[in-house]
């Protein structure tokens, strides 16, 4: 298929004329020509949040558009979320460092749609190429007449801010991102209020993932129908799959949304490394239900994975082959969540740490059967017990790993 977001000709980095020369700006012009059509177009395209949640994009936009601007808070804000710190996810850094203009143009179209005058390009500071590319791009846009047209429509000057995030995983959560953009520590907070009502400096705020916004100029340029047709089956558009783990050709693959797991792993991924048997895939955060060899023919899209009881998440697919311990991997991921819990909620920080200790103990051969019951207890106690979803992710991957690969755990506690 033809790549959209990763097409070689649009990888012009910060060269704005270069972007405009390959069709960039067309989408924004269409948006400016008929601002009221933007949200319906996005809705018709079926675009969903590609940062992991899969929430219909047009509903967020409509919610922010419906809010009155908050003058004390600066009007309205858009936060382009490029915090990306999940294990196995490496798509936003590609877009920001190679094709930042399509992301910024997407944000400008969103600004037109919701009448926002502040755009925060929220980027993980560990991705220095992304930071440089965004800074140069923002300067280029600030001097371009298109931005004036956007400002005219919004009704006030539009500012592009490059905000280096804390670089912490938890900063990707939307209330945490809002706190971080305001200069504070990225502490998540309980919702409601949602950022759409009260976000950055109290102003209505639209948060979208980098990949989500990157699709927007293309949709506005080529139309909703074109976008829908890119997907397979009922799925729409393309998806950046971050493929890693025990495969021959790991990397970023832009494929039709709904590509099967088998095609991703054995086709694009070149099959399993060293001819190992396929065992499982940790998806998304990795905070979701594991996929196993029974799921090889599942379509990797939001609805198909939800029907399976899992989630697409960020599109990260961490493939595990025979010879790799699920228990070990789960221990590593839970340790990641424990280390990245912000500290506000005891259930999250202390609970994930305890799960981590139990997993380490079992993996070290010092576990006992009662530890498995204690772990299962956590899969029931922890979900929903935090201000944000971090603890839920840890609980989900634990529950799934325990349920699907129970025998690995039982063997570890029996022979420990």
């Amino acid at each position, binding site marked *: 298929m033809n790549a959209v977001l990763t097409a070689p000709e649009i990888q012009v980095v910060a060269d704005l004329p270069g972007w405009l020369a390959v069709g960039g700006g067309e989408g924004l012009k269409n948006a400016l020509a008929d601002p009221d059509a933007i949200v319906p177009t996005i809705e018709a395209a079926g675009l969903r949040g590609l940062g992991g949640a899969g929430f219909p994009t047009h509903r967020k936009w409509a919610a922010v558009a419906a809010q009155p601007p908050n003058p004390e808070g600066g009007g309205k804000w858009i936060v382009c979320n490029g915090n990306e710190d999940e294990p196995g996810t490496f798509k936003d850094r590609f877009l920001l460092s190679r094709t930042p203009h399509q992301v910024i143009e997407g944000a400008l179209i969103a600004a037109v749609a919701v009448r926002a005058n502040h755009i925060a390009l929220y980027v993980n500071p560990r991705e220095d190429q992304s930071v440089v590319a965004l800074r140069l791009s923002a300067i280029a846009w600030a001097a371009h007449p298109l931005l004036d047209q956007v400002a005219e429509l919004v009704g006030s000057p539009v500012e592009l801010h490059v905000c280096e995030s804390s670089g912490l995983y938890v900063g990707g959560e939307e209330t945490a991102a809002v706190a971080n953009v305001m200069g504070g520590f990225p502490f998540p907070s309980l919702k409601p209020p949602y950022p759409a009502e009260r976000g950055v400096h109290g102003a209505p705020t639209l948060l979208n993932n980098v990949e989500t916004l990157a699709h927007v100029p293309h949709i506005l340029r080529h139309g909703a129908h074109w976008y829908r047709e890119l997907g397979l089956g009922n799925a729409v558009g393309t998806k950046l799959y971050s493929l890693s783990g025990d495969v021959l050709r790991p990397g970023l693959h832009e494929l039709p949304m709904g590509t099967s797991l088998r095609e991703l792993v054995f086709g694009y991924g070149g099959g399993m490394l060293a001819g190992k048997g396929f065992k499982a895939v940790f998806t998304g955060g990795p905070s979701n239900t594991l996929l196993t060899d029974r799921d090889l023919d599942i379509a990797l899209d939001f609805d198909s994975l939800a029907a399976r009881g899992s989630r697409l998440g960020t599109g990260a697919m961490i493939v595990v082959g025979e010879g790799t311990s699920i228990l070990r991997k789960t221990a590593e991921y839970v340790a990641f969540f424990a280390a990245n819990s912000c*500290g506000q*909620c*005891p259930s999250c920080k*202390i*609970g994930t740490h305890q799960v981590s200790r139990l997993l380490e103990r079992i993996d070290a051969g010092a576990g006992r059967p009662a530890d498995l019951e*204690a772990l299962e*207890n956590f899969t*029931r*106690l*922890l979900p929903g017990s935090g201000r944000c979803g971090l603890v839920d992710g840890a609980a989900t991957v634990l529950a799934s790993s325990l349920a699907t690969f129970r025998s690995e755990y039982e063997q570890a506690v029996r022979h420990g």
Partner: protein
Amino acid sequence: MATARLVIDGHPIEGEPGTSLLQAWVAAGLPLTENVGCMGQGVCGACRVLVRRPGERLAQTGLACETLVEDGLQVAFINLSRGSRPHPYDLHALGDSWDAIARIDELFPEAERCRHCGGCDSACPKGIQVQQMVNLAAVGQTYAAAELFDDCVQCNLCVAACPEHIDPAHLGQLVRRMTAAMTLRPSDLIMRLHELEAGEQPIDLDAPGARPPAPDAEDAR
């Protein structure tokens, strides 16, 4: 009051009203060899639990010997070893009190990175203002910091709660120990020690008061 039904570490348990989580656990026939110590006085800090009450979003930490059974509780024990020393120091090598206060920073460099999440305060089963102690200690207000930590039972829940690895429980003990070791100089004790060194407090093993007053009737038994 009816029997409370709750779950501890995955085991459905029925607890008599008024009994602690620990008592309910052993009454249910489950083995208890860790996360236990003083068994009710709430001073050893060994029986840490995470407790989620029905209908409540956030879970809370507590001590299992002090937390009573309630219907619908979900409970998990938290094992925290105290046998590690992440911030080692030698109390006797801190120098005099001029240097020692400055050295708190060297010994606990994370303290000034407190992100003010309040997790330590929420985690403390004794209601100590842990974060405030950390902040005071970080700016050298040693005595005020030490006073805040008076009720600490060294359960180490604040250590587990701290995302910056500050080790509040150990920082709290450092400031407490410093204030005692460097400022407490009772005159009566010092005088008595001088007497002892001079051999002025001999003990007479056969003094009249060291002998039973009368032929000890109890011996006849």
